[in-house]
């Protein structure tokens, strides 16, 4: 069915392109701009979802994205729904705090989405991140698909990477990239009383264009 539609389209284009060329001009998509990360290149101008349970490395991944964007002198925004952002830990991860707009939403996911929409519409940010990591799944599930579409639309054709972090995937078709993280194990070093937490080992399942890729990574302390 799809192939016959494509064939028909090509026939129409071939017949009419000489008469109205502009209507059938095939736009070549510019090379996709991305934000590099440890698991997958995060696309700009699109919505990316990071999902995972506690201690799965999702916050470390988010802070590394903030560090990458802010180290390139880009302004970032973090919509912190549950007020869980730790500036000390973020600074240690290389985030330039003076370039990150931190909005504490006091547990209100609606405020976080509205603020993200306003900031994305305003433009100029390299990364807009919504942290729904500690928000109840019941609340996040109630966010209508239209809200995700609106957010995706707000960053389309811009250099802003929109990242949503939650416990599960919610935006479905609205997100260009989904990163599902799972905790493999915590890395401990030594024996009590000289034992130390050394880091986390996590597995990321990246889904882009219905194709999934799995990779493991280690986050050291």
């Amino acid at each position, binding site marked *: 069915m799809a192939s016959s539609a494509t064939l028909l389209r090509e026939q129409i284009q071939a017949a009419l392109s000489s008469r109205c060329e502009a209507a059938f001009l095939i736009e070549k998509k510019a090379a996709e701009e991305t934000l590099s990360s440890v698991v997958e290149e995060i696309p700009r101008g699109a919505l990316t979802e990071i999902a995972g349970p506690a201690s799965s490395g999702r916050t*470390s991944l988010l*802070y590394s994205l903030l560090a990458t964007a802010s*180290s390139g002198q880009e302004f970032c925004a973090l919509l912190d729904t549950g007020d869980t952002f*730790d500036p000390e*830990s973020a600074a240690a991860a*290389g985030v330039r705090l*003076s370039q990150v707009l931190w909005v504490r939403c*006091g547990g209100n996911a609606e405020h976080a989405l509205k603020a993200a929409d306003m900031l994305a519409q305003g433009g100029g940010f390299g990364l807009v991140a919504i942290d729904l990591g500690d928000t109840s799944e019941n609340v996040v599930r109630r966010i209508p698909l239209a809200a995700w579409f609106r957010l995706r639309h707000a960053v389309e054709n811009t250099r802003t990477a929109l990242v949503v972090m939650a416990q599960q995937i919610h935006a479905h078709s609205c997100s260009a990239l989904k990163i599902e993280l799972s905790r493999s194990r915590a890395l401990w070093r030594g024996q009590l009383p000289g034992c130390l937490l050394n880091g986390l080992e996590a597995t990321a399942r990246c889904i882009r264009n219905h194709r999934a890729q799995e990779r493991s990574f280690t*986050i050291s302390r």
Partner: protein
Amino acid sequence: MFACLYAPGNLPLLVECAGHFSPLIEETSSDTVVFDIRGLQRIYGSAEQIASEIQRRVGITANLALASNPDAAIHAAQAIRGVTILPPDRAAAILAPLPPYLLGGSPEFARTLDLWGVRTFGEFADLPHLGVAARLGEEGTYMQQLARGAGHRQLRLRVDPVVFRQQQELEDSVDQLEPLLFLLSRMLNELCERLRFYGRSTNEIRLRLKLERAPGHTTTLRLPVPMLDARVLLKLLQLELNDRPPQAPIEKIQLELMPVEPRTTQHGLFLPSSPEPEKLEITLARIRGMVGAENVGAAELMDTHRPDAFRVGPLVAAKGMVVPAPPKLAFRRFRPPCPAQVWCADQGKPARIVSSKGGGRIVACAGPWRTSGDWWASEIWSHQEWDVETQSMGVSRIYHDYLQGEWFIEGNYD
């Protein structure tokens, strides 16, 4: 012709007196005022009559000197008591006994004159001009001209600070936001036009509203960057008044814009784009209205070991690019810390935890680490921290608060 008034500690009075005779006034120092009196002969007559009129007007004991150039008048007024009139042909003779420190100049110049044994204006004025130029340079020749009473310069005129303020008394009190904004819009447009005329922008808006049978309403908006767009300023005022409306009908409006140098920024060609300041400020004002002003900004770490010590400041562009660091283990902080029940095994090692965030058997742990501080302040803390791993919560940091005698979960490693 210039007149100089000298009276220690009476500058406002001297300026007011000078203002009666001339609009061209120089505030030379905290006790000296010079002003241009050319043309006053037609009104008062001779120089003596002008001097007596100035003396009558000043009303206090002040030295007054009239000379053909400002510097001669200043030197005479600062050193000679009463009224001194220096005709151009006798200025050098009158100034001759004055000490050379009145000339000012660099410390090296004063030291050189002292080494030469020059004790008066007259002695310095008598030195050969070429010799002074060879030994003291440009400064020396200029100072010698002053010592001869032959200096020549323009007055550094005193400029009154321009106030960008408008006020309007309303015939009928305004009790709704829309008509108030209409009036504010007109006032802002006029003030912005005036600012533009003077080549200034503003970084602070002060709005004072006099209310009917209620205390006045004052709003001060501080902008992160200088702006001059009346529409942006109006929008910011609107958002502020929406959040904090006046509590009674308005009788009088006073609006003031504080002038500052306009913003001049040269962006690099290869720098990434940043949010437009005016647009960002409106967006931030909207977000502040939604979540509270204290919850919006850039975090700044404080110089202390106290846990969770930060302040919220403005968003500032950092200079220079840096190489991003590899990902590091991040911490998610619970605010406030989550109370927990912890059962300890041998040697005080946590073995089991129960809390609203989850709990269960602790499968691995590291610690303890003792932290305490600020014992001299109300923010005193004394903790024993552990990193613990459970199946349901992952890896968390818990602590025993010695002051409260309870356990808390500080946050999660994530």
